[in-house]
């Protein structure tokens, strides 16, 4: 019987290795997986690359992981949220690398990785400082830049409800990066608030089908 539910949080991230690319869901705190990120902090994995929209706030969750020194690089769109002090300090002392990606390009690059798209052309960032090293190309006489898929080794996402197949639904705007990161990673681990019996989630309502989810952890 398929059962993706993992009982102990330390078993969710125990196979993360040095140098892994971690996709961390959330837009600010909405949809962020603090307990999985903190479990990752307890492992021996280091030199991690974290892909997320932000670079953590205050001193918990993503900020704590970054502060632990395990993260070599952050790929994100907006690391300057108020409260993102741990990242900013490490950035200023050059202890952490930053790849800054426009928010829509970040989410589209993740989608491309999950969808088998090697590269795509977007108008976003054309002509800007963020495109100086990007390949350009015109379609219908409008300029686009080439962007590449961005694949993760692990996605740490947060849902509302799951079942043993790993089907997931989200709550309101906490959906944000969850569905797209789940598809873009080799291994996807979901923290949820509730686990229900198979068939209890309306099939029309399922946002992330279990095919994209490897482990489910119930955070009470």
């Amino acid at each position, binding site marked *: 019987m398929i059962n993706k539910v993992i009982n102990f949080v330390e078993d969710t991230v125990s196979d993360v290795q040095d140098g892994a690319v971690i996709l961390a869901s959330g837009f600010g705190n909405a949809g962020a997986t603090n307990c999985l990120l903190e479990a990752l902090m307890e492992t021996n994995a280091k030199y991690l690359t974290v892909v997320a929209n932000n670079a953590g706030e205050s001193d918990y969750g993503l900020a704590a992981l970054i502060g632990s020194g395990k993260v070599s690089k952050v790929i994100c769109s907006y*690391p*300057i949220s108020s409260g993102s002090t741990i990242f900013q300090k490490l950035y200023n002392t050059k202890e952490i690398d*930053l790849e800054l990606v426009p928010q829509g390009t970040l*989410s*589209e690059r993740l989608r491309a990785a999950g969808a088998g798209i090697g590269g795509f052309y977007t108008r976003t*960032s054309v002509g800007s400082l963020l495109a100086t090293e990007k390949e350009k190309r015109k379609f219908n006489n409008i300029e686009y830049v080439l962007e590449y898929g961005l694949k993760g080794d692990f996605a740490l996402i947060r849902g509302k409800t799951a079942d043993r197949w790993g089907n997931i639904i989200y709550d309101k*705007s906490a959906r*944000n990066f969850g569905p797209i990161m789940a598809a873009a990673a080799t291994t996807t681990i979901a923290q949820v608030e509730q686990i229900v019996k198979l068939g209890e989630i309306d099939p029309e309502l399922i946002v992330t089908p279990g095919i994209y989810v490897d482990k489910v952890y119930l955070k009470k």
Partner: protein
Amino acid sequence: MNSQKKQMGLNRRQVAWRIAQEISEGSYVNLGIGSPELVANYIPEDREIIFHSENGILGMGPAPRPGEENGNLINAGKKPVTLLEGGSYFHHTDSFAMIRGGHIDICVLGAYQVAQNGDLANWATLDTSKPPGVGGAMDLSVGAKKIFVMMDHLTKDNEPKLMKTCSYPETGFGVVKTVFTDLAVIDILDSKFIVREMVETLSFTQLQSKTGAPLTLSDNFKTLTPPNLD
């Protein structure tokens, strides 16, 4: 003196009010973080406008009553909001597909500078002491059908923000349609700043002296007369 100086131009609520008048029934509108969020408060009551938030909301409503905030229902500025009847949620990639695909009618953005050809600078200053951050600004600037800019006419140091060319790094090129400042409503047409409205406390020459590029008076020029909104 101080109160007189304040009265020369519009306050932020009045600029927001002016922008709100420009948004027609049924428009899909994204409001940038900060002052542009005020625009939602001044939509005429008989007009139905659907607000988009790039973190995955259509039909976003006003701030909740105190005590009714939900951390999972926030806007792009990460502040608690509500959802109107008819609203919906979607993931980030779908949300930016909506933006980049040209489905948003109007986006109201703040700006550091706007050039006379419509170039927009609103994501980075020349200060390198902090890491850079771009968020959705570049996606919005190229994706929305119309870009409105809401900004002060001058910087805090009385430098012009309407320029021949931006000195700050650009977000998008040739994208701004109309700039709404505390002093004027200025359309961009054929790489010219066309003054459609300005406050009556100022002469055109005075407005020009506060602007870093030539201004042209519109054939349809009107005085900008907002209601009192304190």
